């Protein structure tokens, strides 16, 4: 992977990759599907839009490169190469045809509880790998959990990730897509821990069971309201020192939901599933379980066992194409 950059500087457009089709465009990048010329491997190319000659390299692109180089794990997206084309930075990533959001929204797919367990397990494994390398993802949501042709779930988009450095260093509270933002972030905490990623996973877990976003706040203030209506307003009693956070407010005090209420809300969940979800969505970050505890939770041992990745439901359309795809990649 490394030699290409040197050549990229002299020969601007390396012919090692072919861009075939534009598949998505965001504010910050355009994504193309393509092929690696010599191996015929299918790839995705993320072209960072910010012009290199204006403000220099984009910070989030730089971080994404840095962390993806560092993290190699079956449940983290693989960065194959980086190159500079005429004016843009290009990240060559492994080709992942679907994401969890697409599957959640696809009403023709039925999620078995074993499927949910499998996805959750793969997410936890990937994030565990990040956390044990002292990297916070800070933008977990179904949309960033991509699905490989062989069913493996891969964590993507490390543009907001950062390494956990000094305890006295200020961190930005303005991270994570709103619906998946932990309460300490909503209160503007400048010091937070890996627990913010756990919260996001807990909310994703709930979304997988409900098939609809669990805490869809309309704006930042509404997010507080929605969150606390569902999970109770944090008080000094259940979360010591919460009121000292920068933008703490408890305008409306909601009582925390009873276990019975939660059982009704997640009617399909077993007691153990519910227990895991509750411990991942504790309002007080110091009470939230950590990844090791989550991975060792009895939920993953009780029947039904997690579905093997290759048997997980896939996007309904283009099924044949994907299958031939996975065969090709195994060669």
């Amino acid at each position, binding site marked *: 992977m490394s030699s290409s950059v040197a050549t990229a500087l002299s020969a601007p457009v390396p012919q090692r990759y072919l861009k075939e089709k534009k598949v998505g465009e965001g504010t910050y990048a355009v994504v193309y599907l393509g092929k690696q010329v010599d191996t015929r491997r299918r790839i995705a190319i993320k072209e960072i839009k910010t012009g290199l000659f204006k403000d220099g390299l984009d910070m989030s692109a730089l971080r994404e490169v840095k962390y993806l*180089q560092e993290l190699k794990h079956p449940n983290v997206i693989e960065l194959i190469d980086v190159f500079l084309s005429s004016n843009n930075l290009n990240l060559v990533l492994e080709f992942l045809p679907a994401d969890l959001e697409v599957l959640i929204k696809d009403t023709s797919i039925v999620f078995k509880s074993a499927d949910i367990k499998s996805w959750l397990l793969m997410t936890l494994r990937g994030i565990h790998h990040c956390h044990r390398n002292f990297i916070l993802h800070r933008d977990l949501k179904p949309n960033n959990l991509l699905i490989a042709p062989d069913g493996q779930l891969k964590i993507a988009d490390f543009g907001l990730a950062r390494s*956990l450095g000094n305890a006295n260093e200020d961190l930005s509270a303005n991270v994570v897509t709103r619906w998946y933002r932990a309460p300490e972030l909503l209160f503007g905490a400048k010091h937070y*821990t890996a627990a913010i990623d756990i919260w996001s996973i807990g909310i994703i877990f709930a979304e997988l069971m409900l098939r609809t976003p669990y805490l869809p706040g309309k704006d930042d203030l509404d997010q507080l309201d929605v969150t606390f209506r569902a999970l109770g307003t944090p008080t000094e009693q259940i979360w010591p*020192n919460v009121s000292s956070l920068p933008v703490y407010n408890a305008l409306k005090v909601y009582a925390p939901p009873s276990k019975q209420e939660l059982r009704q809300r997640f009617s399909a969940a077993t007691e153990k599933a519910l227990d895991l979800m509750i411990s991942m969505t504790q309002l007080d970050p110091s009470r939230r379980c950590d990844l090791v505890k989550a991975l060792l939770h009895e939920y993953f041992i009780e029947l039904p066992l997690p579905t093997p990745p290759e048997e997980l439901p896939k996007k309904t359309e283009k099924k044949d194409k994907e299958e031939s795809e996975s065969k090709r990649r195994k060669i």
Partner: protein
Amino acid sequence: MAQQPVSPEMVNYLVATTNSIIQVKPQPRKFSTISTDDLLVAPAVKTVSLGHFIRRLIKYSNVQTPTLMATCVYLTKVRNLLPANAVGMETTRHRIFLAALILSAKSLNDSSPLNKHWTKYTDGLLTNDEVNMAERELLGLLKWDINIKQHELDVALEPFLHTIKTSLAAHLDQVSAQKVNYYRLSNTYRTSSPISSRSSSTSSIASHSSSLSLNEGPASNYSLQSLVQEEAEIKGHIYRPPLANKSTNTLNVPPRKDVYGMAMV
């Protein structure tokens, strides 16, 4: 070390490292764009001295020690990558340093100046395009391998580790001596001559160490307690692997309670 403010020793070390990267050929007339005005300290070279340049960058951008530690690693990497006979122009070292600093600041901190701000911080030495170019070239040179491994950090910062180690040993000696004297002399330890001579001898070792904030005040003013505290601090720094801080940065400090028990609330 990572928690200390930026020390002059750190800056000097950065200057020395940057100087050792590449030899430059003084060609003062060729690059007329270089402004050579009042900033000049030593007029031998017709450009801002590297030390000055680096000090100003650090001051303007307000970067912290960990960022500079990372910068150091990149500089060391570049030194190993460049052929020994490479010759740069006058501002090559400035450019390399700036690029390394930008790279570390962008990849480590949540907010970093944009390149146009960095350009301003060079006081007109470089243009925005030149800064961008330097950044790109550094990444090309590093072949995008921008991760910092433990051993690279150890190598790049070896002199600091060494001084920390020596002064730690010195402090342990000193503290035990202090303790002995303390008990012996009861509460007159402050002014007793054996201690002050001891302290001054050790503080001369410590004065060239970077991260110990020992340099203020005469040595005889140290109270036993502050020394013990300092020793504990130093210990903490030594045994913790740099940049891979395991310190859980706690939002709230109550001891962890049983998660599942609490879940029932």
